[in-house]
């Protein structure tokens, strides 16, 4: 039997697009939440992290309540743009974006919180704009954290099953992803087919985790080579 590669393509496309969305949303949320007063920060933090601990089926339920063809958002999109928001391939983007968002948000927030704001102050007194400082000082200094968050979010989006199954379902060649395919093949007794996709999934996850570890190692190394403020004067 020739392996139909559609689920891999679909999974990668969904994960890539949702990671792109999460990247900006997560950084944006992290940047502004880090600046908020403690109480507001605590509340927002809980709300933004919730999808990480909720069962994906609960997230799927909420999404269906919002985007189902007879619900607020779903109905509006159907009437105005003639677009269905459920049971189509891109419906899975919403599911994986919501589920993977907290990983990006929390990692980026951690990076922003450990950022030395003296550097930003220095940039300002030197006449540089806040935008310049954000992109040219803050982001490069928090690079490791942001990349780690992106990779983790991508990995989570790629493996998303519960919410995806509810909002996008399983239609071979249309909404099938790796995870829904594994379930479907196993359910229909195609153990060998399921195994192939399991191996594909394992390979991708291993690569992702290896790259995260390499990033962390690189981070530690660059910190070790940092010379403390001392030494000879030329």
């Amino acid at each position, binding site marked *: 039997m020739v392996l139909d590669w559609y689920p891999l393509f679909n999974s990668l496309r969904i994960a890539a697009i949702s990671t792109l969305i999460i990247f900006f949303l997560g950084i944006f949320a992290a940047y502004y939440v880090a600046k908020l007063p403690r109480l507001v920060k605590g509340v927002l933090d809980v709300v933004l992290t919730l999808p990480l601990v909720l069962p994906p089926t609960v997230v799927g339920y909420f999404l269906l309540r919002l985007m189902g063809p007879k619900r607020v958002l779903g109905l509006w999109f159907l009437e105005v743009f003639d677009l269905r928001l459920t049971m189509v391939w891109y419906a899975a983007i919403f599911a994986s974006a919501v589920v993977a968002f907290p990983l990006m948000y929390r990692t980026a927030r951690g990076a922003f919180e450990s950022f030395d704001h003296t550097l930003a102050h220095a940039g*300002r*007194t*030197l*006449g540089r704009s806040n935008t310049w400082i954000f992109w040219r000082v803050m982001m490069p200094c928090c690079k490791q954290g942001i990349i780690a968050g992106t990779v983790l979010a991508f990995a989570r989006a790629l493996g998303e099953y519960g919410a995806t199954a509810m909002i996008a379902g399983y239609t071979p060649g249309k909404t099938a992803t790796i995870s829904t395919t594994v379930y479907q093949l196993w359910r229909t007794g195609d153990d060998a087919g399921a195994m192939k996709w399991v191996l594909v999934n394992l390979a991708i996850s291993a690569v992702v985790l290896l790259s995260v570890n390499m990033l962390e190692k690189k981070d530690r190394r660059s910190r070790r080579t940092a010379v403390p403020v*001392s030494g000879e*004067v*030329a």
Partner: protein
Amino acid sequence: MALSVDIHKDFGTFRLDVAFETERGQLTGLLGASGCGKSMTLRCIAGIETPDLGRITLDDRVLFDRERGINLPPQKRRVGYLFQNYALFPHMTVAQNIAVGVADKKTRAETVARLVRTLYLEGQEDKYPRQLSGGQQQRVALARILASAPEVLLLDEPFSALDSYLKWQVELELADLLTTFPGPVLFVTHSRDEVRRLCQRVCVLDQGTSQAVMPVNQLFEAPHTLSACLLSGCKNISRVRAAGDGQVEALDWGVVLNPGRPLPEHLTHLGVRAHYICPVDGPGPNRLPCRVERVVENVFSTVVMLSTPGGNQGFSRLRIELEKDAWPALAGRDPLWLELPAKDLLLLTAQ
């Protein structure tokens, strides 16, 4: 006058009340113990923090004026700020760090090259801050500030991040560099020695409140306030009470003294430096009998701690410093009579 500051900020448990003026081409020291609001003052001047009330002006330019609703962002203040840890951008090379200060793209390369030469950073252009020594890092930070053509320089404890054996040389280099800077320089430190060596004028900051700016030699020869006296390193201080006839009773030392000059209003304390106190043979005016408590041998001098008629605790003790060979002749005396010369008595007020 070039930089004029009059600001207030309330932190709940701590109040910042700072007012002073500095002159063009002069190095003014902001001297105070840690946590007295020195760095906060600099942050307000640079625009990083916003005072609750007051005004900051640089020549005719208003940087901050609460009443007129003016609060320039740091970008427009043209205030150069040398941070305690230098705040170099770790992901940029020396040349890139300096270039951040240059707004004009056309002159950027030229300005960077000039500053690299002026600050002895040749050959370091492509290194990262972590690969440099503390002194070099400080010079990169200074080059970066000078590249932004500031009108005033703020130096926040510039030597605190350096190893002690480096401080001396870096201090000399910095002093040389600062002589070429035309604007006012504000130098924050807790070290009286740095103030004495580097500054022309000094403003003492005591628990968030600033005192009158004075020439540096006045701080050491004739401080007027208790905090200035303590910061100038004077160890012998007693509370006083007027005793009539121009005399004062030193409560901690248990002796009545005559300073021989008019007493200032609100006189609260008296100070006398350890090396002005003379051992004498017997009683007389401004003399008191003391008992030796402890002798500390320094490399070139002997420090003797003595109890006074006022007691043996805290400020009741006197501390004298003698030449090494002068001590053996006095060692056996009990009591040891000391004279506090009238001209060397420092008359101090609380503020």
